[in-house]
């Protein structure tokens, strides 16, 4: 249930990331045929599938060094958006599992940076950078890789809807 007409900046950044990942699903020059991009709901709204991208927010930390004084002051935050890429190829596929993970990692990065001054996230962020990718450990279930994107942004203290430069 939504009671507001404008979105908090972290939510708008998540929308930008989702929109960029949709390029992999749309096809074009991407090597991976993306299946879907999902932002999970509280009770799980997806079933794991091949070439599926799951966006989940992780830590939110205050970046004190980037805060600005003022009335009101500007607060700086850094949020990590984890992009889990699932790989569930056929059991009969003789391709090494890491092959798919490597391609997914490459295509995620290519899609995220596919925009002018991509790190500003369409004017919402001060800076963005990729975190260390982590292979999803396969215990017989889902394979794949996590590519984190760390986004630093500034908002008015007490109003996370208002971007501050």
């Amino acid at each position, binding site marked *: 249930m939504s009671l507001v007409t404008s979105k908090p900046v972290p939510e708008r950044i998540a929308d930008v990331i989702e929109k960029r990942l949709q390029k992999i699903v749309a096809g074009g020059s991407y090597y991976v045929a993306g299946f879907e991009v999902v932002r999970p709901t509280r009770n799980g709204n997806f079933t794991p599938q091949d070439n599926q991208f799951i966006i989940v927010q992780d830590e939110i930390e205050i970046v004190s060094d980037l805060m600005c004084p003022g009335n009101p002051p500007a607060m700086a935050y850094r949020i990590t958006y984890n992009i889990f890429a699932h790989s569930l190829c056929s059991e009969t596929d003789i391709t090494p599992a890491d092959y798919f993970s490597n391609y997914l990692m490459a295509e995620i990065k290519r899609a995220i940076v596919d925009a002018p001054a991509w790190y500003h996230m369409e004017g919402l962020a001060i800076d963005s950078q990729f975190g260390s990718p982590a292979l999803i450990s396969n215990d017989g279930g*889902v394979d794949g890789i996590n590519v984190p994107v760390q986004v630093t942004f500034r908002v008015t203290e007490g109003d996370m809807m208002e971007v501050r430069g």
Partner: protein
Amino acid sequence: MTLRDAIEADSLKVFLNLGEFAETVTYYPHKAFGQAVRPPRTIRAVVFREDLVTLGEDDGQTVVPQFTVHVKNDSAEGISSTEIDLGADQLEFPRRDGKPPEKRSILRMIDQDHGMLVLQCH
């Protein structure tokens, strides 16, 4: 009749009895690497609808419903252990009793014998 034969014979009429705990589900085989497309089929299954679990592969950051599904080890009336393609094959059944059916990926085979397969879906 040997015990082995009896187990195989009982898999459908005893363990997968539609008048008791079994229901009909749809099996969607994945197109195996380098092979022809396999058509879906309706089979019997006993579905244990379990709680939400964290998807460990995603560092526990996502939750998905978990289902344990018992099917006959047979290529016509169930799913045979030789044809199943874990991770790619899917089963379609309602998430809750009375809800419309949804496709769920078969991720693991928990147990198997010549009569039955026990599969884990999410």
